[in-house]
C-alpha cells in the first residue's frame, strides 16, 4: 500500500533535464536557424501540454514582449548608427529575439518540469543546504501573500492616503511578521532537534527510464551542434 517505494515518495531527478535544457539553450544561442526553430517548437509544445497554463501564458506574453522590445531596440540602434536598411535591421532583430525567446521557453519548461520538491530532494544530500533552501522555498509564497494582505488591510484603514508614508507603513508589518515567522520556524527546528548531521530523506530523486531519453537527446543536440 504505502512504503518507501510508493509514488509520492519520489521526485524526478533533476540532472538529466538540466543537461537537456543546457544543450537546448546552447542550440538556441549558437545553433543554426532550423535548430533554433525545432527547439522553440519543442519547448513551446512541451509548455502548452504541461498543464501549467498560468506559467505557459505568462511565458507567452514575456516572449512576445521580448521579441517586440528587441526588434524595436535593434532597429533603433542599427538603422541610424550602423547604417543598415529597415528590412535588414528587422531581420537581425528578429533573429536575435528568436534566440532569446527560445532560451526563455526552455527555461520556463525546465521550471515547470521540475517542481521545487524535485530541486529540494536533489539538494537533500547536503543536509544544511537542503534545510536552508527548504525554508526559503517555504517562506517566499507565504511572504508574498502576506505583503498583499498587509497593503489591503492598511488601505482599508485609510493609511495609504498620501505619498511617502504608505510605503514605510507597509514595510513595518511585513518585516516584523517575517521575523516572527522566522522565530517560530526556529522554535519548530529546535523542537525537532535540527542539529543532527545525517538524515535519510523520505522524498528522493529517482532515475527514470525517460531520463535516459533526455540525456540521449542532450548528447545528440550537443554532438549535432559541434559536428555540423
Amino acid at each position, binding site marked *: 500500500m504505502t512504503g518507501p517505494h*510508493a509514488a509520492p515518495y519520489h521526485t524526478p531527478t533533476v540532472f538529466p533535464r538540466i543537461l537537456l535544457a543546457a544543450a537546448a539553450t546552447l542550440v538556441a544561442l549558437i545553433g543554426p536557424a532550423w535548430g533554433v526553430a525545432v527547439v522553440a517548437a519543442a519547448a513551446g509544445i512541451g509548455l502548452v501540454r504541461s498543464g501549467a497554463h498560468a506559467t505557459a501564458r505568462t511565458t507567452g506574453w514575456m516572449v512576445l514582449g521580448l521579441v517586440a522590445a528587441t526588434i524595436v531596440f535593434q532597429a533603433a540602434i542599427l538603422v541610424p548608427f550602423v547604417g543598415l536598411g529597415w528590412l535588414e535591421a528587422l531581420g537581425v532583430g528578429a533573429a536575435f529575439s528568436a534566440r532569446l525567446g527560445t532560451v526563455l521557453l526552455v527555461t520556463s519548461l525546465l521550471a515547470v518540469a521540475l517542481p521545487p*520538491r524535485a530541486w529540494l530532494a536533489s539538494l537533500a544530500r547536503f543536509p544544511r543546504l537542503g534545510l536552508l533552501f527548504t525554508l526559503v522555498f517555504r517562506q517566499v*509564497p*507565504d511572504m508574498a501573500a502576506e505583503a498583499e494582505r498587509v497593503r489591503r488591510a492598511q488601505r*482599508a484603514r485609510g493609511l495609504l492616503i498620501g505619498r511617502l508614508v504608505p510605503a514605510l507603513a507597509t514595510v513595518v508589518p511585513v518585516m*516584523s511578521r517575517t521575523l516572527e515567522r522566522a522565530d517560530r520556524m526556529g522554535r519548530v527546528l529546535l*523542537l525537532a*532537534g535540527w542539529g543532527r548531521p545525517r538524515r535519510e*530523506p523520505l522524498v528522493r530523486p529517482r532515475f527514470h527510464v525517460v531520463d535516459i531519453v533526455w540525456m540521449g537527446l542532450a548528447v545528440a543536440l550537443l554532438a549535432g551542434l559541434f559536428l555540423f
Partner: protein
Amino acid sequence: MEAEAPDGTASAGVLSGAPAVRAERLSFGPSGGSGPVPIDRLSFTVEPGETLLVAGPSGTGKSMLLSLVAGLGSTYSDPQVGGHLVVAWPEGVDPGPLPRPRPGRVGFLQQEPGDGLLGVDLLSALALPLELLGLGRDETADRVGHALETSGLMEMAEREVSTLSVGERKRAALAGIEALDPPLVLLDEPLADLDPPGVRHLLDDLARIHTARTVLVAEHRIGPLRALADRELHLVPSAARPPPRIWTPAIARGPGGAEPAVVANSLSIDRGGRRLIDDATFRLGPGVWGLLGRNGAGKSTLLSVLAGLVAPTSGAVTVAGRPVWSRGLRVSRRETHEVGLRRTLQVCFQEPREAFFAASVKEELTAPIERLGLLLGHRARSKVENGLEQAGLTHLAEVSPQRLSGGEARRVQTLGALLVSPSVLFLDEPTHGLDPVARDALRANIAAFGRAGGVVIVATHEPAFLPAGAEWIHLPGDGRVMVGDAARPGEPGPAKDGYVVPDPLAPETTALPEVRP
C-alpha cells in the same frame, strides 16, 4: 517512573512514555517587563496520559505556558523565572527550573500551524521531523503514510503547503504530530478559524491523538473540548483590568441623506481560476448581518470586493450611496473619493497585526484619524485616549502594536475602526482569540452599531456569537449569495455546511470561574 492508567482503559505499557507535568508556583515573564508578569505563581498537576484544558482571558500567558512545557523557555531572552515547571519524563527530569527541548518527544501545534510544516510539499514537511530524529526511510514512510491515511489527507500529500487553507494546515500539522507519535502533545487554539465541518474533523483527530498521551490544550472555545479533557485550568489575569464599556456610535448618513446600505448589482468574482460569486444582486440595509460559508467559500474575498479593495470580475457595488465599482471597474481614482469611502466604511481583517505599523498603540489609532482628516493633533490624540479608556485598553496605550497578544490586537483593531466613526463596518472572523468577556463586549458593540442605523457584516463560523435579531448571508460555495431567510442557520442551505440551531459547537459565553484545582 511507572505510570498508572487513570481510567483503566489504556494499559500502563502504552502510557509508560507519557510524562506528568507539574508547575509549582511558576512565574515567568519576558525581560525588562515592568508590569505584572504574564504567568504569576501558577501551580497545577497533570498526571501521565491526562488531557488538560487551559482556558482564560487573552494575555494570561496560555501560549507562553505551552511553550515552556515544550522546553522552549530558553528562546525567551533573559526572562524573569520563579518557581518550577517539571515535565517528569520516564527517562528523567531536566535540571533547572524549566524543562529543555526533547526532540521527538513533544508534538506542538502552534497558533500558526503552517510555520510548523517545514517543507515545500506536505509529504516532505511531515517527514522532516522524523528525518531529523534519524529514523530510517522505511520507518519514516510507514509513519507518515499511516498518519496521512488515518487523517484522510493522503490525496493532498504532494500539495504545496503554501496552497493549503487554514483548516487544511491545522489538520496537516496534527497528522505530523501523529506521525511523530510523541508522548506529550501541546495544542494552542486548535479550533480557531475552522468552519463547523473542519471543527468536527479536528475533534475526531484530537480524540484519536489524546489517547495514551499527556495533552495540554489552550482554547477559548472550551465547550466542544470539555468531553476530551480530564482537568481544566482557568487562568486569571494577574492584575484586575477595567471591563470594557459599550460604544454608542453616531451613524452618519451618506451623500444626499441616504441611509447606509451595501448594494451589489450583477456582481461576479473570480479567484484562482474559480468563480466564487456568480451574477449576484443583493442589498444589505442597516442592521447586523452574519456572513456564513465554509473555509474557501469566498467570505473574505467578497468583503474585500465590497470594500473596494479587490476588483470584481464584473458588476457594480455601492456603499452608503457611494459608487465603488461599476461594470467591474473602479468608479474613481481620486484621493477625495478614497478618503470619503474609508471614512464611511471600515474593515477589520482576520489578522489585525498585519495592518499595524506604528511604534505604540496610541499612535496606531491616531494615524487613520489624522490621515482621513477627521481630527488633527491633540484633538485626535484625546479622542484616542477617550476611546482607549472606554474600551478598557488604557494599559496598552504605549505598547508596541506588534507585541500585543492575539485578543488584545483584535480589540485594538476594532477600536481603531470604531474611532473613525464609519457607518458601515465589516468584521472578518472577529472572535478569533477573544476571551468570553471581550466577546460579550464586542457582541454588545455590534448590536449597538446595528441599532444606531449602521450596517455591520460579520463573517464568522460561530453564528451563536451574533446578537439576537441579526440577519444572514450564506455563501453555499456554488457562486450564489443567499440573503435573508434562506441564509438563516438551521435552514437547509446553511445546515448543509454545518450551521445548525442550536449550535453544538457554541463556546462558553459566560465569564469563567476562577482557578479550579
